[in-house]
């Protein structure tokens, strides 16, 4: 991969209702070699509208990657997943569940709803940042989209 040309902007949508977590994740994503443009929404309803480019989000860019928490106000992560993965075109967008829950059922349900993968947020901040960078690196550099 060429390192001397500026990489194209990658669009990342963070669906996260904890401002601290959202900040940590944004910082970690920006530290990667890619050139991310990050949008943060803090509830499931806005996440769906953003992805569907509806209402206030009519001109929203289509994300290359979505990091989605499960427990959110105004439509939880499972509901967002169900709606997006039902859509013939939007289902192609990789959705990584990044959640603090350790609950086996919740994880299983996410995979049933076709989450691309699930990552449990490490309690340790440094490990959390590392995990976010690995997610970015794998999804935006290794996989094809």
């Amino acid at each position: 991969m060429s390192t001397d040309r500026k990489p194209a902007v990658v669009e990342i949508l963070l669906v996260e209702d904890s401002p601290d977590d959202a900040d940590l994740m944004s910082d970690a994503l920006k530290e990667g070699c890619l050139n991310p443009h990050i949008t943060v929404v803090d509830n499931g309803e806005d996440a769906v509208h953003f992805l569907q480019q509806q209402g206030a989000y009519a001109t929203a860019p289509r994300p290359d990657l979505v990091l989605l928490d499960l427990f959110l106000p105004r439509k939880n992560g499972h509901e967002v997943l169900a709606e997006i993965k039902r859509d013939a075109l939007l289902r192609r967008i990789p959705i990584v569940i990044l959640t603090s829950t350790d609950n086996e059922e919740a994880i299983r349900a996410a995979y049933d709803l076709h989450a691309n993968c699930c990552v449990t947020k490490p309690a340790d901040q440094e490990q959390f940042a590392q995990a976010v960078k690995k997610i970015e690196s794998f999804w935006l550099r290794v996989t094809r989209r």
Partner: protein
Amino acid sequence: MSLISNGGRPIEILLVEDEAEAAETTMEALRDGRVRNRIHWVEDGEEAIAFLRRQNRHAAAPRPDLILLDLNMPRMNGHEVLDIIKQHPDWRRIPVVIMTSSDNEKDILMAYDRHANCYITKPLDIDKFIEAVRSIEDFWLSIVRLPAA
């Protein structure tokens, strides 16, 4: 840093790949990885389904935690296998990583449409191929929380 709580048992990987050389390289790379895993190699789509159904010689097959799936194979191609897996009420939650030599846009879209968890084009260069397999191991076997059965 392994965040998986799989009770210390090895991660069961089903490798569906018709080219022996590619399969050998993949298995070598995974064996060298940090996370304990067991690789089950089948050479075509029909064998993959038989493995999941625990039929014939696969009667004692474990349920895979992860499936690495080639697309262009005889007797049942990867797209058909993917469709069967992702429509099945139980198997659908097993992550499927497409690993194929095809970088055809149509194949990529079709795979994601059928809910492939991710799609990786096999590099032609062997070192890059090994690197790609290591990336899979580094991500799917380390960071990712795989679903329980």
